[in-house]
């Protein structure tokens, strides 16, 4: 297996008596896109700040490219990281182009490539305007542009789509896919698992600072053990005798019957459906169901 770019080993971080991150293990490998999912205060931002070296772990070890990002030499590791903070704040008095030039120089990247970067996030026309006049979506895109400076090996995006409208969100994920094709590893935090479905390779679910799940979405579906359900609406006034066909089904209000089954069973069940069935619906667990399952249980072995 390739050497991870970012690695957390038994990392715990306390703020006074409160434990923000509890014994978390995490590895981000080259080219991988990992979603960090959890409710507000689950420890997502703390983990990202630990990786950046803004915070030091109370226990355990954080390594970025084999170095401690919080140590003096960590400055070198930080050059290989791109960071987009939650609700990115930029200097309102600077223009978009100036902002990018300032950050490029801090990172010792040639600002000559900035125009191309601005074009890539669709801000070339607005580059000479002050950031104060930007909409939230534009600021987020400028934030992504600064995170992409110098082709970092890993991108750390903290709730990059919170507060964006659906169209901006889609274009943001479009940009992200392009970045991934260029080979950067991405660690992406979000509180909505459903949003990450087609975006990430792997999901890490956090609950109150603990890692409760780690795997790709298919694995998580299996682990969660939430099975699809079939719902049948019966004709009104169906005699009880004909209900013998529905042994084991649960009754729901309004003459609806429901049963849990496995994926292969679905077809059989549908084939043998009696005539009294008026409408049939197959309910598969959504990612939100999956997330609810993992965030309400402490630990499911992975």
């Amino acid at each position, binding site marked *: 297996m390739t050497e991870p770019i970012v690695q957390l080993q038994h990392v715990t971080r306390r*703020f006074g008596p409160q434990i923000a991150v509890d014994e978390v293990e995490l590895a981000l490998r080259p080219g991988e896109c990992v979603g960090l999912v959890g409710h507000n205060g689950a420890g997502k931002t703390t983990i990202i*700040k630990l990786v*950046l070296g*803004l*915070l030091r772990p109370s226990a355990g070890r954080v390594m970025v490219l084999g170095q401690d990002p919080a140590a*003096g030499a960590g*400055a*070198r590791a*930080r*050059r290989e*990281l791109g*960071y987009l*903070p939650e*609700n*990115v*704040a*930029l*200097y309102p*008095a*600077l223009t978009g182009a*100036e902002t990018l030039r*300032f*950050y490029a*120089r*801090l*990172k*010792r990247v040639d600002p000559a490539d900035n125009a191309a970067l601005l074009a890539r996030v669709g801000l070339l026309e607005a580059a000479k305007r002050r950031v104060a006049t930007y909409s939230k979506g534009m600021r987020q895109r400028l934030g992504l542009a*600064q995170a992409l400076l110098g082709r970092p090996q890993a991108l750390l995006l903290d709730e990059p789509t919170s507060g964006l409208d659906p169209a901006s969100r889609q274009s943001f994920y479009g940009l992200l896919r392009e970045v991934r094709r260029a080979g950067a590893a991405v660690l992406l935090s979000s509180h909505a698992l459903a949003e990450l479905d087609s975006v990430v390779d792997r999901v890490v679910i956090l609950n109150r600072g603990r890692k409760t799940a780690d795997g790709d979405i298919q694995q998580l579906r299996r682990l969660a053990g939430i099975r699809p359900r079939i719902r049948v609406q019966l004709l009104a006034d169906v005699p009880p005798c004909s209900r013998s066909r529905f042994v084991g089904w649960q009754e729901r209000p309004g003459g609806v019957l429901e049963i849990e089954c496995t994926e292969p069973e679905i077809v059989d069940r549908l084939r043998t459906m009696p005539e009294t069935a008026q409408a049939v619906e197959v309910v598969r667990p959504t990612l939100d169901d999956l997330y609810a399952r993992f965030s309400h249980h402490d630990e499911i072995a992975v």
Partner: protein
Amino acid sequence: MRQMVLIAGKEWLDGWRNRWVLVVTLLLALFALTLSFLGAAPTGSVKASPLAVMIVSLSSLSIFLLPLIALLLSYDAIVGEWERGTLALLLAYPVARWQVVLGKFSGQVGILAMATGLGYSTAAVAAIMNSADFAADWSEFAAMLASSVLLGAVFIALGHIVSAVSRDRGTAGGIAIGIWLVFVLVYDMALLGVLVADRGRVLSEEAVGWLLLINPADIYRLFNLAGTTSASAFSGMSGLAAQAHFGPAFLISMLLLWCAVPLVAAVWVFSRRQI
């Protein structure tokens, strides 16, 4: 060094954009011009070089105004960025925290130096043009200007430590105003009160001299109003100057120390701050 210069440059650009440089320059020029024309009246036929009078009046102005401007400029250097949320991103870049503090400090000293230099020089030139006496001692004026910038730098450094310690801008602003009140107004009044009550019984004249060194504003006063010969004659500080045996070089190095200590403290506190 490179990172420091970048941050200083950004601070300077911010100063231009939010009109700080312009407003402070105009304010200082306005005050200085007013003082120079008012100050010209009493000299009348007295044999005083207009520039010497100028130095006395401008340094009295500096003692009140520059610390205030310096504190207002610097109090939110760190806490402001922290509150607005730009600090985490800045520190995620390959920048050490001491570079952030020193960069911001030098940028703000640059703003203050520019404003003071332009403002005071205009006033000085206007005063000279208005009088027949051109035999002015510009080196004393330059010394006053340089020490004024240094006084400002001391309070910018103090502002940085306030900014590094505070959790929100409101508190930082309050503490900054408090520092200004203590050093510029309260300290001297308290010292005067003690001297009057004491009547030289406990406090020796030498001790008073050392007590003045505790306050950077007083060091500046000693340097400009008592230190140079022509100015001390008009400033009424000649008595004090004779008692306090501090040479100009010593006074300047004390001001430099007053700059360095808060800066080092600010870096130390900031390095331990949770972002």
